[in-house]
Protein backbone atom coordinates (compact mmCIF):
# COMPACT_ATOMS: atom_id res chain seq x y z
CA UNK A 1 0.00 0.00 0.00
CA UNK A 2 2.61 2.53 1.09
CA UNK A 3 4.81 1.54 -1.75
CA UNK A 4 1.92 2.23 -4.12
CA UNK A 5 1.58 5.72 -2.72
CA UNK A 6 5.29 6.16 -3.29
CA UNK A 7 4.80 5.16 -6.93
CA UNK A 8 2.19 7.85 -7.20
CA UNK A 9 4.55 10.39 -5.59
CA UNK A 10 7.16 9.53 -8.18
CA UNK A 11 4.64 9.83 -10.99
CA UNK A 12 3.67 13.26 -9.75
CA UNK A 13 7.34 14.17 -9.52
CA UNK A 14 8.05 13.13 -13.10
CA UNK A 15 5.06 15.03 -14.42
CA UNK A 16 5.99 18.21 -12.55
CA UNK A 17 9.49 18.01 -13.97
CA UNK A 18 8.13 17.92 -17.50
CA UNK A 19 5.62 20.68 -16.89
CA UNK A 20 8.16 22.73 -14.96
CA UNK A 21 10.76 22.53 -17.69
CA UNK A 22 8.17 23.39 -20.28
CA UNK A 23 7.10 26.46 -18.36
CA UNK A 24 10.72 27.43 -17.73
CA UNK A 25 11.16 27.91 -21.43
CA UNK A 26 8.36 30.48 -21.61
CA UNK A 27 9.06 33.92 -20.14
CA UNK A 28 5.59 34.45 -18.72
CA UNK A 29 5.50 31.20 -16.75
CA UNK A 30 9.15 30.50 -16.06
CA UNK A 31 9.10 31.30 -12.39
CA UNK A 32 5.98 29.30 -11.72
CA UNK A 33 7.52 26.41 -13.65
CA UNK A 34 10.52 26.41 -11.37
CA UNK A 35 8.29 26.32 -8.31
CA UNK A 36 6.20 23.49 -9.74
CA UNK A 37 9.27 21.39 -10.37
CA UNK A 38 10.49 22.19 -6.85
CA UNK A 39 7.17 21.09 -5.39
CA UNK A 40 7.34 17.83 -7.33
CA UNK A 41 10.87 17.28 -6.09
CA UNK A 42 9.75 17.82 -2.50
CA UNK A 43 6.99 15.27 -2.91
CA UNK A 44 9.37 12.74 -4.42
CA UNK A 45 11.96 13.25 -1.66
CA UNK A 46 9.45 13.16 1.19
CA UNK A 47 7.83 10.07 -0.32
CA UNK A 48 11.19 8.33 -0.49
CA UNK A 49 12.08 9.11 3.10
CA UNK A 50 8.81 7.95 4.60
CA UNK A 51 7.47 5.33 2.23
CA UNK A 52 10.43 3.63 0.59
CA UNK A 53 10.73 -0.08 1.21
CA UNK A 54 13.24 -2.56 -0.06
CA UNK A 55 12.55 -6.26 0.58
CA UNK A 56 9.80 -5.23 2.93
CA UNK A 57 12.20 -3.20 5.03
CA UNK A 58 11.97 0.53 5.55
CA UNK A 59 14.89 2.89 5.49
CA UNK A 60 16.80 3.59 8.66
CA UNK A 61 19.54 6.06 9.70
CA UNK A 62 16.96 8.82 9.74
CA UNK A 63 19.24 10.94 11.88
CA UNK A 64 21.93 10.94 9.21
CA UNK A 65 19.46 11.54 6.44
CA UNK A 66 17.77 14.51 8.05
CA UNK A 67 21.13 15.83 9.22
CA UNK A 68 22.40 15.79 5.64
CA UNK A 69 19.23 17.34 4.30
CA UNK A 70 19.30 20.14 6.85
CA UNK A 71 22.99 20.92 6.41
CA UNK A 72 22.73 20.81 2.61
CA UNK A 73 19.51 22.78 2.65
CA UNK A 74 20.89 25.57 4.78
CA UNK A 75 24.18 25.89 2.93
CA UNK A 76 22.42 25.68 -0.43
CA UNK A 77 19.87 28.34 0.43
CA UNK A 78 22.43 30.70 1.86
CA UNK A 79 24.83 30.29 -1.04
CA UNK A 80 22.05 30.77 -3.57
CA UNK A 81 20.68 33.82 -1.80
CA UNK A 82 24.02 35.47 -1.21
CA UNK A 83 25.58 35.04 -4.62
CA UNK A 84 25.88 38.13 -6.78
CA UNK A 85 23.84 38.23 -9.94
CA UNK A 86 26.90 38.23 -12.16
CA UNK A 87 28.34 35.22 -10.35
CA UNK A 88 25.28 33.07 -11.01
CA UNK A 89 26.80 30.92 -13.73
CA UNK A 90 29.60 29.98 -11.35
CA UNK A 91 27.05 29.04 -8.74
CA UNK A 92 25.09 26.88 -11.17
CA UNK A 93 28.30 25.16 -12.13
CA UNK A 94 29.12 24.46 -8.51
CA UNK A 95 25.65 23.03 -7.79
CA UNK A 96 25.92 20.93 -10.90
CA UNK A 97 29.24 19.57 -9.66
CA UNK A 98 27.60 18.63 -6.36
CA UNK A 99 25.01 16.59 -8.22
CA UNK A 100 27.70 14.82 -10.21
CA UNK A 101 29.63 14.06 -7.04
CA UNK A 102 26.48 12.73 -5.42
CA UNK A 103 25.95 10.33 -8.32
CA UNK A 104 29.58 9.20 -8.15
CA UNK A 105 29.37 8.60 -4.39
CA UNK A 106 26.27 6.49 -4.82
CA UNK A 107 28.12 4.35 -7.32
CA UNK A 108 31.08 3.95 -4.97
CA UNK A 109 28.87 2.80 -2.12
CA UNK A 110 26.89 0.43 -4.32
CA UNK A 111 30.07 -1.04 -5.74
CA UNK A 112 31.44 -1.54 -2.27
CA UNK A 113 28.18 -3.19 -1.32
CA UNK A 114 28.18 -5.77 -4.08
CA UNK A 115 31.95 -6.34 -3.79
CA UNK A 116 31.56 -7.24 -0.13
CA UNK A 117 28.34 -9.20 -0.43
CA UNK A 118 29.19 -11.91 -2.91
CA UNK A 119 25.69 -12.67 -4.08
CA UNK A 120 24.91 -13.29 -7.72
CA UNK A 121 26.15 -10.22 -9.51
CA UNK A 122 24.31 -8.96 -12.51
CA UNK A 123 26.71 -7.53 -15.09
CA UNK A 124 24.10 -4.98 -16.14
CA UNK A 125 24.05 -3.76 -12.57
CA UNK A 126 27.81 -3.31 -12.52
CA UNK A 127 27.69 -1.55 -15.88
CA UNK A 128 25.23 0.99 -14.56
CA UNK A 129 27.28 1.52 -11.42
CA UNK A 130 30.34 2.31 -13.52
CA UNK A 131 28.41 4.53 -15.87
CA UNK A 132 27.16 6.55 -12.91
CA UNK A 133 30.65 6.70 -11.46
CA UNK A 134 32.38 7.83 -14.63
CA UNK A 135 29.79 10.33 -15.81
CA UNK A 136 29.23 11.70 -12.32
CA UNK A 137 32.91 12.27 -11.64
CA UNK A 138 33.62 13.80 -15.04
CA UNK A 139 30.75 16.16 -14.40
CA UNK A 140 32.01 16.93 -10.90
CA UNK A 141 35.60 17.63 -11.89
CA UNK A 142 34.60 19.55 -15.00
CA UNK A 143 32.13 21.69 -13.10
CA UNK A 144 34.67 22.60 -10.46
CA UNK A 145 37.14 23.65 -13.14
CA UNK A 146 34.43 25.65 -14.92
CA UNK A 147 33.56 27.30 -11.64
CA UNK A 148 37.20 28.19 -11.05
CA UNK A 149 37.59 29.63 -14.51
CA UNK A 150 34.53 31.83 -14.28
CA UNK A 151 35.78 32.92 -10.90
CA UNK A 152 39.11 33.82 -12.35
CA UNK A 153 40.78 31.28 -10.04
CA UNK A 154 42.04 29.08 -12.89
CA UNK A 155 43.40 30.35 -16.19
CA UNK A 156 43.34 28.53 -19.50
CA UNK A 157 45.70 25.61 -19.67
CA UNK A 158 46.53 23.46 -22.63
CA UNK A 159 49.50 21.48 -23.82
CA UNK A 160 50.08 20.24 -27.30
CA UNK A 161 48.59 16.84 -27.90
CA UNK A 162 46.11 17.30 -25.11
CA UNK A 163 43.35 15.98 -27.35
CA UNK A 164 45.21 12.76 -27.85
CA UNK A 165 45.82 12.45 -24.14
CA UNK A 166 42.15 13.10 -23.44
CA UNK A 167 41.07 10.45 -25.89
CA UNK A 168 43.52 7.96 -24.42
CA UNK A 169 42.28 8.59 -20.90
CA UNK A 170 38.73 8.09 -22.06
CA UNK A 171 39.62 4.86 -23.81
CA UNK A 172 41.38 3.53 -20.73
CA UNK A 173 38.38 4.38 -18.59
CA UNK A 174 35.99 2.65 -20.98
CA UNK A 175 38.21 -0.38 -21.48
CA UNK A 176 38.82 -1.00 -17.81
CA UNK A 177 35.15 -0.48 -16.98
CA UNK A 178 34.25 -2.97 -19.69
CA UNK A 179 36.80 -5.41 -18.29
CA UNK A 180 35.36 -5.21 -14.80
CA UNK A 181 31.81 -5.50 -16.06
CA UNK A 182 32.67 -8.49 -18.20
CA UNK A 183 34.43 -10.28 -15.35
CA UNK A 184 32.10 -9.11 -12.65
CA UNK A 185 31.17 -12.65 -11.68
CA UNK A 186 34.82 -13.50 -11.06
CA UNK A 187 36.34 -10.54 -9.38
CA UNK A 188 35.25 -7.15 -8.18
CA UNK A 189 38.40 -5.49 -7.08
CA UNK A 190 38.07 -2.13 -5.42
CA UNK A 191 41.39 -0.98 -6.85
CA UNK A 192 39.71 -0.88 -10.26
CA UNK A 193 37.03 1.32 -8.84
CA UNK A 194 39.44 3.87 -7.48
CA UNK A 195 41.59 3.76 -10.59
CA UNK A 196 38.59 4.50 -12.77
CA UNK A 197 37.41 7.18 -10.39
CA UNK A 198 40.81 8.91 -10.52
CA UNK A 199 41.01 8.74 -14.30
CA UNK A 200 37.47 10.08 -14.68
CA UNK A 201 38.25 13.03 -12.46
CA UNK A 202 41.41 13.68 -14.45
CA UNK A 203 39.45 13.51 -17.67
CA UNK A 204 36.93 16.00 -16.36
CA UNK A 205 39.72 18.44 -15.54
CA UNK A 206 41.53 18.01 -18.86
CA UNK A 207 38.28 18.27 -20.75
CA UNK A 208 37.39 21.69 -19.41
CA UNK A 209 40.77 23.31 -18.69
CA UNK A 210 41.72 24.31 -22.24
CA UNK A 211 38.34 25.84 -23.06
CA UNK A 212 38.19 29.62 -22.88
CA UNK A 213 36.50 31.21 -19.89
CA UNK A 214 33.89 32.86 -22.07
CA UNK A 215 32.70 29.51 -23.35
CA UNK A 216 32.04 28.23 -19.86
CA UNK A 217 28.23 28.70 -20.04
CA UNK A 218 28.16 26.23 -22.92
CA UNK A 219 30.41 23.83 -21.06
CA UNK A 220 28.31 24.10 -17.92
CA UNK A 221 25.20 23.32 -19.91
CA UNK A 222 26.90 20.26 -21.34
CA UNK A 223 28.07 19.08 -17.92
CA UNK A 224 24.55 19.72 -16.70
CA UNK A 225 23.23 17.19 -19.16
CA UNK A 226 25.99 14.77 -18.09
CA UNK A 227 24.81 14.98 -14.51
CA UNK A 228 21.30 14.33 -15.77
CA UNK A 229 22.49 11.09 -17.35
CA UNK A 230 24.36 10.16 -14.17
CA UNK A 231 21.14 10.65 -12.20
CA UNK A 232 19.32 8.47 -14.72
CA UNK A 233 21.88 5.71 -14.06
CA UNK A 234 20.76 5.84 -10.46
CA UNK A 235 17.22 5.48 -11.74
CA UNK A 236 18.15 2.28 -13.57
CA UNK A 237 20.03 1.00 -10.52
CA UNK A 238 17.08 1.32 -8.16
CA UNK A 239 14.43 0.92 -10.83
CA UNK A 240 13.34 4.33 -9.64
CA UNK A 241 11.19 6.06 -12.25
CA UNK A 242 11.46 9.58 -10.97
CA UNK A 243 15.25 9.50 -11.03
CA UNK A 244 15.17 7.88 -14.42
CA UNK A 245 12.74 10.32 -15.99
CA UNK A 246 14.16 13.41 -14.29
CA UNK A 247 17.69 12.46 -15.27
CA UNK A 248 16.90 11.64 -18.87
CA UNK A 249 14.76 14.74 -19.22
CA UNK A 250 17.64 16.94 -18.12
CA UNK A 251 20.08 14.93 -20.17
CA UNK A 252 18.09 15.49 -23.35
CA UNK A 253 16.99 19.04 -22.66
CA UNK A 254 20.49 20.00 -21.54
CA UNK A 255 22.02 18.65 -24.71
CA UNK A 256 19.61 20.60 -26.87
CA UNK A 257 20.12 23.70 -24.75
CA UNK A 258 23.87 23.40 -25.25
CA UNK A 259 23.35 23.33 -28.98
CA UNK A 260 20.96 26.28 -28.84
CA UNK A 261 23.48 28.29 -26.87
CA UNK A 262 26.17 27.59 -29.42
CA UNK A 263 23.80 28.53 -32.18
CA UNK A 264 23.02 31.87 -30.52
CA UNK A 265 26.76 32.59 -30.79
CA UNK A 266 26.80 31.31 -34.35
CA UNK A 267 29.27 28.56 -33.50
CA UNK A 268 29.22 24.80 -33.47
CA UNK A 269 29.58 22.75 -30.30
CA UNK A 270 32.68 21.10 -31.71
CA UNK A 271 34.18 24.50 -32.33
CA UNK A 272 33.54 25.51 -28.73
CA UNK A 273 34.95 22.30 -27.26
CA UNK A 274 38.10 21.85 -29.30
CA UNK A 275 38.27 24.95 -31.47
CA UNK A 276 39.76 26.88 -28.60
CA UNK A 277 43.19 25.38 -29.20
CA UNK A 278 44.42 26.59 -32.53
CA UNK A 279 41.92 29.40 -32.92
CA UNK A 280 43.67 32.11 -30.96
CA UNK A 281 46.72 31.96 -33.21
CA UNK A 282 44.84 32.32 -36.46
CA UNK A 283 42.52 35.04 -35.25
CA UNK A 284 45.45 37.05 -33.91
CA UNK A 285 46.94 36.83 -37.37
CA UNK A 286 43.71 38.08 -38.87
CA UNK A 287 43.58 40.95 -36.43
CA UNK A 288 46.99 42.23 -37.33
CA UNK A 289 46.39 41.64 -41.00
CA UNK A 290 44.56 44.78 -41.94
CA UNK A 291 45.69 48.31 -41.38
CA UNK A 292 42.71 50.02 -39.91
CA UNK A 293 43.87 53.62 -40.09
CA UNK A 294 43.11 56.16 -37.41
CA UNK A 295 40.49 56.38 -34.74
CA UNK A 296 38.97 59.48 -33.12
CA UNK A 297 38.67 60.18 -29.43
CA UNK A 298 36.07 62.25 -27.67
CA UNK A 299 36.55 64.03 -24.36
CA UNK A 300 34.38 63.33 -21.35
CA UNK A 301 32.81 66.77 -21.37
CA UNK A 302 32.05 66.65 -25.07
CA UNK A 303 30.40 63.26 -24.63
CA UNK A 304 28.37 64.63 -21.73
CA UNK A 305 27.17 67.60 -23.77
CA UNK A 306 26.32 65.57 -26.85
CA UNK A 307 24.24 63.13 -24.86
CA UNK A 308 22.46 65.75 -22.78
CA UNK A 309 21.27 67.59 -25.85
CA UNK A 310 20.35 64.52 -27.86
CA UNK A 311 16.70 63.65 -28.13
CA UNK A 312 17.28 59.89 -28.25
CA UNK A 313 20.20 57.92 -26.80
CA UNK A 314 20.66 54.17 -27.08
CA UNK A 315 22.99 52.37 -24.68
CA UNK A 316 24.63 49.15 -25.91
CA UNK A 317 25.91 47.24 -22.89
CA UNK A 318 28.49 44.48 -23.26
CA UNK A 319 30.82 42.27 -21.32
CA UNK A 320 32.97 45.21 -20.21
CA UNK A 321 30.04 46.73 -18.33
CA UNK A 322 29.63 43.50 -16.38
CA UNK A 323 33.34 43.24 -15.62
CA UNK A 324 33.43 46.82 -14.40
CA UNK A 325 30.26 46.24 -12.33
CA UNK A 326 29.05 49.53 -13.76
CA UNK A 327 25.37 48.65 -14.06
CA UNK A 328 24.27 50.84 -11.16
CA UNK A 329 26.03 53.96 -12.32
CA UNK A 330 24.81 53.24 -15.82
CA UNK A 331 21.25 53.31 -14.53
CA UNK A 332 22.07 56.59 -12.82
CA UNK A 333 23.26 58.08 -16.09
CA UNK A 334 20.11 56.90 -17.75
CA UNK A 335 17.90 58.51 -15.10
CA UNK A 336 19.85 61.74 -15.26
CA UNK A 337 19.51 61.94 -19.04
CA UNK A 338 15.82 61.10 -18.79
CA UNK A 339 15.37 64.00 -16.40
CA UNK A 340 16.84 66.21 -19.07
CA UNK A 341 14.18 64.98 -21.44
CA UNK A 342 16.35 62.55 -23.36
CA UNK A 343 14.72 59.32 -24.50
CA UNK A 344 17.15 56.65 -23.26
CA UNK A 345 16.92 52.98 -24.15
CA UNK A 346 19.11 49.90 -24.02
CA UNK A 347 19.85 47.71 -27.02
CA UNK A 348 20.36 44.15 -25.81
CA UNK A 349 22.19 41.72 -28.05
CA UNK A 350 21.29 38.12 -27.27
CA UNK A 351 24.89 37.06 -26.66
CA UNK A 352 26.27 40.25 -25.17
CA UNK A 353 28.26 39.41 -22.07
CA UNK A 354 29.29 35.92 -21.18
CA UNK A 355 26.08 34.11 -20.53
CA UNK A 356 22.69 34.20 -22.22
CA UNK A 357 20.55 36.87 -20.67
CA UNK A 358 23.62 38.32 -18.97
CA UNK A 359 22.70 41.92 -19.78
CA UNK A 360 19.08 41.48 -18.76
CA UNK A 361 20.05 40.05 -15.41
CA UNK A 362 22.73 42.67 -14.92
CA UNK A 363 20.53 45.63 -15.68
CA UNK A 364 17.66 44.13 -13.72
CA UNK A 365 19.98 44.07 -10.73
CA UNK A 366 20.36 47.84 -11.13
CA UNK A 367 16.56 48.21 -11.35
CA UNK A 368 16.48 49.32 -14.96
CA UNK A 369 12.88 49.04 -16.05
CA UNK A 370 12.03 46.27 -18.43
CA UNK A 371 10.39 48.39 -21.13
CA UNK A 372 13.63 50.27 -21.66
CA UNK A 373 15.32 47.09 -22.91
CA UNK A 374 15.04 46.53 -26.63
CA UNK A 375 15.78 43.21 -28.26
CA UNK A 376 18.14 43.18 -31.19
CA UNK A 377 15.52 43.44 -33.95
CA UNK A 378 13.63 46.26 -32.26
CA UNK A 379 16.85 48.10 -31.54
CA UNK A 380 17.99 47.82 -35.14
CA UNK A 381 14.68 49.32 -36.17
CA UNK A 382 15.21 52.25 -33.84
CA UNK A 383 18.85 53.09 -34.57
CA UNK A 384 18.04 55.22 -37.62
CA UNK A 385 16.07 57.58 -35.39
CA UNK A 386 18.73 57.58 -32.67
CA UNK A 387 21.08 60.51 -32.13
CA UNK A 388 23.77 58.96 -29.97
CA UNK A 389 24.66 55.34 -29.36
CA UNK A 390 26.77 54.75 -26.25
CA UNK A 391 28.60 51.42 -26.49
CA UNK A 392 29.64 50.37 -22.99
CA UNK A 393 32.21 47.58 -22.97
CA UNK A 394 30.66 45.84 -25.94
CA UNK A 395 32.74 44.85 -28.92
CA UNK A 396 31.90 41.71 -30.91
CA UNK A 397 28.19 42.36 -30.81
CA UNK A 398 28.66 45.62 -32.73
CA UNK A 399 31.38 44.42 -35.09
CA UNK A 400 30.35 45.00 -38.73
CA UNK A 401 32.77 42.26 -39.83
CA UNK A 402 30.01 39.83 -38.89
CA UNK A 403 28.09 41.11 -41.87
CA UNK A 404 30.81 41.79 -44.39
CA UNK A 405 33.91 39.70 -43.75
CA UNK A 406 33.26 36.09 -44.72
CA UNK A 407 36.62 35.04 -43.27
CA UNK A 408 35.81 36.45 -39.84
CA UNK A 409 35.16 33.94 -37.07
CA UNK A 410 31.96 35.80 -36.21
CA UNK A 411 30.74 36.02 -39.81
CA UNK A 412 27.02 35.44 -39.97
CA UNK A 413 26.26 36.41 -36.38
CA UNK A 414 23.49 39.02 -36.34
CA UNK A 415 24.80 42.27 -34.84
CA UNK A 416 23.51 45.55 -33.51
CA UNK A 417 23.67 48.03 -36.40
CA UNK A 418 24.84 50.99 -34.36
CA UNK A 419 26.12 52.75 -37.46
CA UNK A 420 22.58 53.53 -38.49
CA UNK A 421 22.51 56.13 -35.72
CA UNK A 422 23.91 59.65 -36.14
CA UNK A 423 26.83 59.19 -33.76
CA UNK A 424 28.50 56.34 -31.90
CA UNK A 425 30.51 56.73 -28.69
CA UNK A 426 32.46 53.64 -27.68
CA UNK A 427 33.73 53.16 -24.16
CA UNK A 428 36.40 50.56 -23.50
CA UNK A 429 39.81 50.60 -21.88
CA UNK A 430 42.01 50.16 -24.93
CA UNK A 431 41.91 49.14 -28.58
CA UNK A 432 42.22 45.48 -27.59
CA UNK A 433 39.84 43.03 -29.21
CA UNK A 434 36.94 41.40 -27.37
CA UNK A 435 35.96 37.81 -26.87
CA UNK A 436 36.38 36.67 -30.46
CA UNK A 437 39.87 38.14 -30.59
CA UNK A 438 39.33 40.19 -33.73
CA UNK A 439 39.73 43.84 -34.63
CA UNK A 440 36.60 45.95 -34.89
CA UNK A 441 36.38 48.24 -37.88
CA UNK A 442 33.57 50.18 -36.23
CA UNK A 443 36.11 51.96 -34.04
CA UNK A 444 37.74 53.45 -37.13
CA UNK A 445 34.59 54.59 -38.83
CA UNK A 446 33.90 58.34 -39.22
CA UNK A 447 30.79 58.29 -37.05
CA UNK A 448 32.59 56.63 -34.15
CA UNK A 449 34.44 58.32 -31.30
CA UNK A 450 36.32 56.43 -28.60
CA UNK A 451 36.00 57.24 -24.90
CA UNK A 452 38.71 55.22 -23.17
CA UNK A 453 38.66 54.08 -19.58
CA UNK A 454 37.12 51.62 -17.17
CA UNK A 455 33.36 51.64 -17.71
CA UNK A 456 32.49 52.37 -14.08
CA UNK A 457 34.97 55.23 -13.81
CA UNK A 458 33.94 56.77 -17.10
CA UNK A 459 30.26 56.58 -16.26
CA UNK A 460 30.81 58.15 -12.85
CA UNK A 461 32.70 61.00 -14.51
CA UNK A 462 29.99 61.39 -17.13
CA UNK A 463 27.32 61.60 -14.45
CA UNK A 464 29.33 64.24 -12.64
CA UNK A 465 29.82 66.22 -15.85
CA UNK A 466 26.16 66.13 -16.74
CA UNK A 467 25.23 67.24 -13.22
CA UNK A 468 27.42 70.32 -13.68
CA UNK A 469 26.05 71.24 -17.09
Amino acid at each position, binding site marked *: MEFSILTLCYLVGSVTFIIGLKMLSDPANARKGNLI*AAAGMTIAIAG*TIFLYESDGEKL*HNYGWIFGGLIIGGIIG*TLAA*KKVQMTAMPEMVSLFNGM*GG*ACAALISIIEFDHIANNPVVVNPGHVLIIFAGLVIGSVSFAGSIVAWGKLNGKFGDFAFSGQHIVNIIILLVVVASSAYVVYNSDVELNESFLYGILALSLLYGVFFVLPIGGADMPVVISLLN*SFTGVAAACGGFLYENKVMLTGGILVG*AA*GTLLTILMCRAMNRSLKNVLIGSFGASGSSKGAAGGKDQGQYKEVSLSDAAVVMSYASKVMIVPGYGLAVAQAQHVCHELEKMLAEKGVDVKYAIHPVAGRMPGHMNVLLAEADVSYDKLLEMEQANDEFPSTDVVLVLGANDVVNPAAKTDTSSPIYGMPILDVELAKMVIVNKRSMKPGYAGIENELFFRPKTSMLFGDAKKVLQDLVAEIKNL
Partner: protein
Amino acid sequence: MTALTWISANQEMIYIVILMIFLGIEVIGRVPSVLHTPLMSGANAIHGVVIIGAIIVMGKAEHDNYLALSLGFLAVILGTLNVVGGFVVTDRMLEMFKKKKK
Protein backbone atom coordinates in the same frame (compact mmCIF):
# COMPACT_ATOMS: atom_id res chain seq x y z
CA MET B 1 21.33 -11.91 -28.93
CA THR B 2 21.68 -11.07 -25.25
CA ALA B 3 21.21 -7.45 -26.25
CA LEU B 4 17.91 -8.38 -27.89
CA THR B 5 16.61 -10.34 -24.93
CA TRP B 6 17.71 -7.49 -22.70
CA ILE B 7 15.69 -5.15 -24.87
CA SER B 8 12.57 -7.20 -24.61
CA ALA B 9 13.02 -7.75 -20.88
CA ASN B 10 13.39 -4.04 -20.27
CA GLN B 11 11.14 -2.74 -23.00
CA GLU B 12 9.09 -0.53 -20.75
CA MET B 13 12.19 1.15 -19.36
CA ILE B 14 13.53 1.63 -22.86
CA TYR B 15 10.26 3.14 -23.99
CA ILE B 16 10.29 5.50 -21.05
CA VAL B 17 13.87 6.56 -21.77
CA ILE B 18 13.21 7.15 -25.46
CA LEU B 19 9.98 9.04 -24.88
CA MET B 20 11.71 11.14 -22.25
CA ILE B 21 14.46 12.03 -24.69
CA PHE B 22 11.91 13.18 -27.25
CA LEU B 23 10.08 15.13 -24.58
CA GLY B 24 13.22 16.80 -23.29
CA ILE B 25 13.99 17.99 -26.77
CA GLU B 26 10.46 19.05 -27.64
CA VAL B 27 9.76 20.83 -24.41
CA ILE B 28 12.55 23.36 -24.66
CA GLY B 29 12.58 23.63 -28.43
CA ARG B 30 11.43 27.23 -28.50
CA VAL B 31 13.21 28.81 -25.58
CA PRO B 32 14.19 32.45 -26.19
CA SER B 33 17.87 33.13 -25.61
CA VAL B 34 17.30 35.37 -22.59
CA LEU B 35 15.99 32.33 -20.77
CA HIS B 36 18.96 30.10 -21.55
CA THR B 37 20.64 30.71 -18.22
CA PRO B 38 17.57 30.28 -15.98
CA LEU B 39 16.57 27.21 -17.95
CA MET B 40 20.02 25.72 -17.51
CA SER B 41 19.80 26.47 -13.83
CA GLY B 42 16.33 24.97 -13.51
CA ALA B 43 17.40 21.82 -15.35
CA ASN B 44 20.37 21.67 -13.02
CA ALA B 45 18.03 21.66 -10.04
CA ILE B 46 15.94 18.88 -11.56
CA HIS B 47 18.82 16.47 -11.95
CA GLY B 48 19.30 16.97 -8.23
CA VAL B 49 16.70 14.19 -8.08
CA VAL B 50 19.80 12.03 -7.68
CA ILE B 51 19.40 12.91 -3.99
CA ILE B 52 16.80 10.16 -3.87
CA GLY B 53 19.50 7.63 -4.66
CA ALA B 54 21.63 9.08 -1.90
CA ILE B 55 18.76 8.81 0.58
CA ILE B 56 18.14 5.20 -0.38
CA VAL B 57 21.82 4.29 -0.08
CA MET B 58 22.06 6.06 3.24
CA GLY B 59 18.87 4.57 4.58
CA LYS B 60 19.95 1.04 3.70
CA ALA B 61 23.48 1.30 5.12
CA GLU B 62 24.24 -0.99 8.07
CA HIS B 63 25.03 0.71 11.32
CA ASP B 64 28.63 -0.45 11.35
CA ASN B 65 29.46 0.26 7.74
CA TYR B 66 31.29 3.50 8.21
CA LEU B 67 32.32 3.86 4.59
CA ALA B 68 28.72 3.73 3.43
CA LEU B 69 27.54 5.94 6.28
CA SER B 70 30.10 8.66 5.76
CA LEU B 71 30.03 8.67 1.98
CA GLY B 72 26.24 8.40 2.01
CA PHE B 73 25.99 11.30 4.39
CA LEU B 74 28.24 13.34 2.12
CA ALA B 75 26.11 12.31 -0.87
CA VAL B 76 22.94 13.45 0.87
CA ILE B 77 24.52 16.82 1.64
CA LEU B 78 25.81 17.30 -1.90
CA GLY B 79 22.55 16.19 -3.45
CA THR B 80 20.59 18.56 -1.23
CA LEU B 81 22.93 21.39 -2.19
CA ASN B 82 22.18 20.65 -5.80
CA VAL B 83 18.41 20.56 -5.31
CA VAL B 84 17.92 23.39 -2.88
CA GLY B 85 20.61 25.66 -4.24
CA GLY B 86 19.47 24.95 -7.78
CA PHE B 87 15.85 25.86 -7.25
CA VAL B 88 16.60 28.89 -5.10
CA VAL B 89 19.14 30.36 -7.50
CA THR B 90 16.80 29.79 -10.43
CA ASP B 91 14.01 31.51 -8.58
CA ARG B 92 16.26 34.45 -7.87
CA MET B 93 17.20 34.79 -11.51
CA LEU B 94 13.61 34.62 -12.63
CA GLU B 95 12.49 37.05 -9.98
CA MET B 96 14.79 39.58 -11.65
CA PHE B 97 13.13 38.98 -14.99
CA LYS B 98 9.74 39.30 -13.41
CA LYS B 99 10.43 42.54 -11.64
CA LYS B 100 11.48 44.13 -14.88
CA LYS B 101 8.31 43.21 -16.64
CA LYS B 102 6.10 45.37 -14.51
